C-alpha cells in the first residue's frame, strides 16, 4: 500500500515542448497557476522551494527515502524530490501551505497532529501530513494501526518515535471522512 509513487509516466511532458530554450512548465500550486522556466533536470521540489518560495516543503535526503518533500500532485502523495518539474506540467499541486482554509482554520489532519503532539522539530511534518492525508483519503473504509504504520513506510521522523503520529492519523480519519460526507 505505497502512499507515494515515484514514477508517474502519465505526468511526463516532452522536454522543451514550448519551443523556448529553457522549457517552461505551467502548474497550479495551491489553487494558483504559475508558469516557470526550468532546466530539464530541475526537480519539482526545487520549483516549489526556490522559484515559488514555498519553503514548507522540505528536503531531508537525496535518495527518496525520507519523505520530507511529499506534496500532492493531482491529489496523490508524491515525493517532490523524485519528480522532474517537467513531469508536473499541467498538474495541480498542493503543498503544506495550501491545506488550511483561507481563514486559517487548519485541515483536520493538521489539527490532529497538533492535538496529539505528533510533531517536534517540525522538519518531517509537512511531508508526514501530506502522506497522512493521502493515506486517509485513499482508505475510506478505515485504517488499523498496522495499516497506518505501514502507510508511513516512506516517511522518516527522528523526533517523535511515530507513536503520536499514528495516533493523530487515526484520529483524523473519522474527521476527514465525516467532512467529505457533508
Amino acid at each position, binding site marked *: 500500500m505505497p502512499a507515494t509513487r515515484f514514477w508517474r509516466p502519465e505526468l511526463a511532458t516532452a522536454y522543451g515542448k514550448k519551443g523556448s530554450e529553457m522549457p517552461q512548465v505551467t502548474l497550479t500550486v495551491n489553487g494558483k497557476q504559475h508558469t516557470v522556466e526550468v532546466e530539464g533536470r530541475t526537480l519539482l521540489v526545487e520549483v516549489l522551494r526556490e522559484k515559488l518560495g514555498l519553503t514548507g516543503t522540505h528536503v531531508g535526503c537525496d535518495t527518496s527515502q525520507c519523505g520530507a518533500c511529499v506534496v500532492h500532485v493531482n491529489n496523490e502523495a508524491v515525493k517532490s524530490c523524485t519528480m522532474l518539474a517537467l513531469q508536473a506540467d499541467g498538474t495541480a499541486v498542493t503543498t*503544506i501551505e495550501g491545506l488550511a482554509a483561507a481563514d486559517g482554520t487548519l485541515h483536520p489532519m493538521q489539527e490532529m497532529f497538533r492535538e496529539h503532539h505528533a510533531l517536534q522539530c517540525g*522538519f518531517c511534518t509537512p511531508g508526514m501530513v501530506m502522506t497522512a492525508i493521502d493515506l486517509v483519503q485513499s482508505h475510506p473504509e478505515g485504517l488499523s494501526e498496522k495499516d497506518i504504520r505501514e502507510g508511513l513506510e516512506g516517511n522518516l521522523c527522528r523526533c517523535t518515535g511515530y*507513536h503520536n503520529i499514528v495516533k493523530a492519523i487515526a484520529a483524523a480519519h473519522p474527521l476527514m471522512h465525516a467532512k467529505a460526507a457533508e
Partner: protein
Amino acid sequence: MGFEGIGAAVKRREDVRFLSGRGNYTDDINRPGQLYAVIKRSDRPHATINAVKADAAAAAPGVVAVYTGADMAKDEIGGLPCGWQIHSKDGSPMAEPPHPVIAVGKVRHVGDPVAVVIATSKQEAKNAAELIDVDYTDLPAVATTLDAMKPGAPEVHDGVAGNMCYDWVIGDKDVVDGVFAKAPKVVKLDLTNNRLIPNAMEPRVALGECDPSSGDYTLWTTSQNPHVIRLLMGAFVLHIPENKLRVVAPDVGGGFGSKIYHYAEEAIVTWAAGKLKKPVKWTADRSESFMSDAHGRDHVSTAEMALDNDGKFLGLRITTIANMGAYLSTFAPCVPTYLYATLLAGVYTTPVIYCNVKAVFTNTVPVDAYRGAGRPEATFLLERLVDVIAHDTGLDRVEIRKKNFIPKDAFPYQTPVALQYDSGDYQTTLAVALKNADWAGFESRRAAAKARGKLRGIGISTYLEACGIAPSAVVGSLGARAGLYEVANIRVHPTGSVTVFTGTHSHGQGHETTLAQLVVDQLGVPLSQVEVVHGDTSKIPFGMGTYGSRSLAVGGSAMVKAMDKIIAKGKKIAAHLMEASVEDIEFKDNTFRVAGTDKTKTLTDISLAAYVPHNYPIEELEPGLDETAFYDPKNFTFPGGCHIAEVEIDPDTGVVEMVNFTAVDDVGRVVNPMIVEGQVQGGVVQGIGQALLENAVYDSGGNLISGSYMDYAMPRANDISNMSVATENTMCTHNPLGSKGCGEVGAIGSPPAVINAVVDALKDYGVRHLDMPATGPKIWSIIQAAKPRMAAE
C-alpha cells in the same frame, strides 16, 4: 484560559507554524545576491594531497571562487578547536592534532573537505566541484576501534604514536584488583557499543553574510548553541570579535547532539562571505551529512563484576576503547570519560569501580556526543552485565537489581566515581514498570507465542543518567574549556506582557511552550502574553545552548532566578505606590498585595509605573522592569528509571518484532507532561533503533559502507509498536524547579532493555550476549548455528 502553568499539558505554540509550512529553517532563508557553496570532499580515507587542480572549476560557468586549505592558511585561519582537554593517567595532556577547516597536506577520512566552490547557483557549484582534480597518494588507513591500537597500525596523525589520543583512568586500580582477587565470583563480559549516525531530519545548513559597509558578519546556522558557535568560530578560527559577529540558529530540524559542534562549513561560508562581500550559503545533501556530521558511540569494552555468593556487587573493573574518528570534534574527549565512566555506578551500590579508557584516532568521521552521549554506553554495559551475571549465576535478574539498588533513604549518595546523586527512588520506578509491563504475566505470553512458532522474550533495564549539564567549576576542573551555566533575560513590557530571551535553543523540544509555562507559573501572566525568543546572539545576552538535557534544569532555573529579580524590584515599586514597607509586600498570581490588607497592584500596574516613572522611587530604583540572570547549576541532575522491552522473534527469519515497550522514568518536576511523553517516546525509538537496526559501518579500508538511508537502517513507523510511557518523579533537590531533564532518558535506558529481551527470547539457543544491532541475519545465523546442538540434545 484554562490552567497553563507548571504541570499543564498545554498544546505547543510552535505547532501551527510548523504544520502550515511557515517554519523558518536555515535553508528557507535566502539573502540578496546570495552565492552557493559546494564542498569538494575527500573520497579517500587517508591520502596525501599532492595537488588540488581547480583551474577548470574556476573557469566553469557561474563560478565566483574556488578555495582550498592553502587559501585559508594564507588568511591565517585557525583550525577547528576542541572544547575539552583530557589528561592521561600519566598526567600528560591528550594528543590534540590540528583540525584544518579545509584539509591541508593530507585527508584523513572520507568526507574531509578538500576545496570549496562558490558559484551563482548551487547547480553550477556542483558541476564545477566535479571538475576539481585532486592528485592524491593513498596511504594505508585504519577504520575500526580495535585496529587503531594494533602494532604497526597506520598513524592517522604524524607524531601521535599508536593513534592514542589519551589513556585515562578513574578509580584506584590496586584497590579494585584487591577486591577482585578476594571475590567469591567474577563475571566478565566483552561488548561493543555500535557506532551511530545521528540523522536529524534537517541536514546541516550554513549561510554567511558580511555587510561591506560595517564589516559586520552574520551566520545563520543549524545549531543547538549559537553563542558557542560565535565564541568558537569568532575567537579561535576566523578571529572576528564578538561584537562584529552575529550567529542566528532559527528553526532547527532536530539536533540530538550533532548540531552542537562547530563545523568546518560554518567557518567556510562566513570567511568566504567576508572575502567576496556577498552572502554564501551551503546546504548539506544527506550523503554529505553521513560523512560530515559527527557520529556517535563506537566503544569496545571489557567489563568485569566481582560479587559475593548472594549476588551483591563488590567491585567493577572496565576497560574501554573509544573511537574519536580522524579529528577531535568540539566535545568529543569528554564523552567516553566524564559522561561515561562517572556513570558506571548506575543505580547500584557497587563500592569500588575502576575504569580505563583509551581514546583512539581512526580514519573515520569524528565521533562526538549523540543523544545520551556516554551515558547510553555506560548503561548498555552495566545493564547487559547485570543480565549476564543473572545468566551465569542463576540468580533472578530483577532480584539481583533490587538487591544492589541504592536505597531511597541513602540520598545524597556519593558514588565511587565522582558523582553525588541528589535524589531517586529506583524501587518505585522498577515496581511500577513491572506492573505496567505485566512482567508477572509474561511466561503465559511466551507460551502463547511459542504455540504460534515465535520466540518471545522480555528484558529490563534499570538505569540512571547525569544531565542538567553542568556546574562550571566542576567541569572546568575536569578539562572543560567553557562554563556550563545558562542565561535568561526576562523583559516585562510596559503593559505587563513578557518576552523571555533564553540562551537555550529549541530544535524540537517545545521551549516556546514549556518555558512560557514557567512565566505563567511564577508571574501569573497568561500564556498568550508571553513570548519566548531563542537562537540569536544579537538578541540574547549569552547562552550555552541545548544539549545534555539542560534546558529546563539549567535554562529554566536561570529564568526562575531572573523572575525572582523582577518580583523583588516589583515589590519595591509596589511598596512605593501603596505607601507600605517592602517587607510587607507579597506577590502571588500576578498581584502585589500589602500583606493582610486589600491594597493591591497588578504586575501591569507595576510595569507601567516602571516604564512611565512619574510616581516612582527614582532616587533608589532605575526605571524599567527587565532582568537578566546567569544560573550556574550546583550539581548534575540524575534522572533514572526502568525500561522493559518485550520482543518476538521469528525463528525462520531471525527478525525481531518489538511487541511492547514500557518506560517509567523519574525526570523530576514535569512542566508539560505531553512534551515529556513525546521526548521519552522519541528517545526510546532512537534506542530501539540502536538496538535493532542502526549501524555505521566502515570497511577495513576506511570506506563508509552505510552512507545513505539505503544502507543505514533508520527506525520507521512499522519497526515499532505501541509503547507505554509514564513518570514516577522525585524532585531534584538543588535547582529551584526540581526538574531533572527528559531529553535523553529514552535513548539511554532502552537499548539494554531491548537486547536483554532478545537474549531472553534466545535463551534456549545458548545465547549469553549479543552485540547491537540485533538484526535478522545476525539472529538467524545464531539460530542456525545452534540447531545441530539442539537437535542432538
